[in-house]
């Protein structure tokens, strides 16, 4: 069997090696994972990890050495998880049938550096899976059309499934995707007039609980399966189609510039609406009361728009934080997110 197909093994000498020093995961955001692992594999830990680069079969891992290898891999997966965030974003979009070819150039640098690091750690299976996935992406780039669909989409997703199997810590999407999807789905539905708890319950009970299902559904399907009024079903479909058109029109880039700009615009709008709401709250006239009622709805709609955008970026934890805050603090938190996002979504070298 070829050495690359085997999991890397540790030499006897590695048994006495101390734990690898902690690596600052945050600092790796903008750097290369290969560099980080190169550091781990050279200078200070040279002696301990040198054996990892020996051909398979040179030594057999036993006892504590095996545990150390596990730690290294776990650390690698931890770093990789952060590093391939854009790849996960891409695949989530692809699963929702929304991905465009711009994603290829966004994902490629992260995939290449991960590939280099995997090679140094002699993770042969991972290297092959990464190669296959990257080949699929490059092929998609040369396909006619802007969106990635059909067989190409299916092939890329199949390659990705293999990556998830090999390194679930970095590539598994289930939790991430479900959390994002739940927020997006509910926020879009609640933006439709007349959609309240009854409709939400009926939609979910009928299995219309994924974005993919909603993007494919027709008003007739929704009305027939849920029993909601045809007009409401029509409005739901229109809302999801508008969302899809918006996503497609927002060509992604590595720094998620357009998404961040959209959130910034929405935050400014929310601030204006909130200020107007506060002014109406101070007044005592009947007109002011009516205006306040209207502004409450308007403000809620904008907040739902923001929720959709943040969920698309995978900022579900941030959303949970924001939900618990009063409106004024929500705005502050959103502004602080926009500040943080400038560094977080910095383009990887």
């Amino acid at each position, binding site marked *: 069997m070829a050495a690359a197909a085997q999991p890397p093994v540790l030499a006897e000498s590695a048994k006495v090696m101390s734990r690898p020093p902690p690596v600052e995961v945050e600092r790796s955001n903008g750097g290369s994972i290969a560099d980080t692992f190169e550091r781990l594999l050279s200078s200070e830990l040279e002696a301990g990890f040198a054996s990892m680069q020996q051909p398979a079969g040179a030594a057999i891992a036993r006892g504590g050495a095996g545990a150390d290898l596990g730690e290294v891999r776990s650390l690698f997966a931890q770093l990789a998880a952060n590093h391939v965030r854009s790849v996960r974003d891409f695949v989530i979009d692809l699963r929702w049938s929304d991905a465009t070819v711009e994603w290829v150039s966004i994902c490629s640098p992260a995939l290449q550096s991960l590939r280099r690091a995997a090679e140094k750690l002699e993770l042969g299976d991972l290297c092959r899976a990464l190669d296959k996935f990257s080949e699929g992406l490059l092929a998609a780039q040369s396909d006619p059309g802007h969106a990635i669909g059909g067989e190409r989409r299916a092939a890329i997703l199949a390659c990705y499934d293999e990556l998830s199997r090999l390194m679930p810590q970095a590539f598994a999407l289930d939790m991430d995707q479900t959390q994002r999807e739940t927020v997006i789905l509910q926020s879009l539905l609640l933006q439709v007039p007349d959609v*309240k*708890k*009854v409709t939400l*319950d009926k939609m979910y009970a009928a299995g219309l609980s994924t974005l993919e299902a909603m993007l494919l559904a027709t008003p007739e399907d929704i009305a027939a399966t849920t029993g909601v009024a045809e007009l409401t079903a029509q409005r739901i479909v229109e809302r999801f189609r508008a969302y899809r058109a918006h996503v497609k029109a927002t060509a992604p880039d590595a720094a998620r510039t357009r998404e961040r700009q959209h959130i910034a615009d929405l935050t400014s709008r929310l601030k204006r609406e909130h200020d107007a709401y506060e002014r109406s709250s101070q007044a005592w006239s009947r007109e002011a009361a009516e205006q306040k*009622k209207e502004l*409450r709805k308007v403000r809620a709609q904008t907040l739902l728009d923001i929720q959709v955008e943040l969920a698309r970026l995978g900022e579900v934890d941030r959303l949970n934080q924001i*939900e*618990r*805050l*009063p*409106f*004024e*603090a929500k705005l502050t938190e959103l502004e602080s997110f926009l500040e943080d996002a400038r560094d977080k979504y910095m383009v990887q070298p």
Partner: protein
Amino acid sequence: MPELTADLVLKKIKIGEKVDRADLRGLVLTRAVLEGASFRRCDLDGANLEGARLSKALFKNASLREAFLAGADLREANLESADLEGANLLGAKLVGANLNRANLEGANLQGADLSGARLTHAQLESATLGGARLVRAELAHADLSETDLSTAKLDEADLTSTDLSGANLEEASLARAQLRDAVLRGATLIRADLSGADLRRANLTGARLEGALFTGARVRSLVGTGAPVVGIRAEWVDDSEDASRAVRVTGPQIAALLSGMTPSSPSHKRYFGRGDVLRNAHLEFDTGAAVEIESLFEHCTIALGEGTELVVGRGGVLSGCQIQGAGRVTIHGKFVEREGPGIVGATQLVVSSEGFLVGAIEQAQDLTRFAFEPGCYLRVQILQAKKERTTKSGRQS
């Protein structure tokens, strides 16, 4: 910045000290144990009390605007006259709580349990109460306008004189609820359960009642929807002044009564029972009469006075007949014309889900109001009133 830290608040409460009138804005006390604590007149705007144990706590006159109280246990808490505008009480337990005169405008109470809570004169405008439990809650004189109460449980709740204008009560359960003098203008009551509810003098103008259950509801002096009511479910309703069930209204009269488009007690009633067959007859019914046909009529002419109610019951078959005059016609059975138009000048025509109508309808001078329930069988040609047709074509007289 709050006047006291969370730790200090917890310490004070632990030794039984009150924290009344304190400035506690934005304080985070998630899942804190604060049972029976006194926060009277405190400023807790924007505080986070998620999952906190606050049963029997005192919040009288406290300000909790935009506070986050999701999942909090507030059973039997005193929140009288508290300001909870925009607060999030998702799934909170408020069983037996005192919320009289509290301000809950725009608050989120989805899935909250308010069974037996007191909310008289409370302000709940635009609040979200979808799926909330309000069984036997006291809500008299509360402002519930534009609230979302879809699928909420309001059985035996006291909603006397409440303002439910524009409220969404879709699939809500209001069995035996008190809704006397309530304003339900423009409310949605689709598939709501109002069995045994007291709706005397309630205002239902513009309300949507499709699929709602009204059996045993007390309906005396209510203001109807102002539009034909179709698809309601009711075996009988009580039209007595004192809700004694002495005056039971059944059949299509119920829909007419809820629509407010017919007097509740017609002066003359005529019933043609099952098994009877009438052929080639000419029948005339005076203004205000009520006629129900469960028989087989063949080649008959039926003349209706103004406002006369004609109901073709489920067993009724009118074959080759003609109905004339400014009456209101409801078809649960079958009507098949021989020569058109089969119905001439009716002011209202309702065909229920089991109804079967084949024929031409010549509308009344002021146009006929139509209501066709899903499931009915129709093969219909609708014509303008004769005079109109004469004017347009200049030929037919």
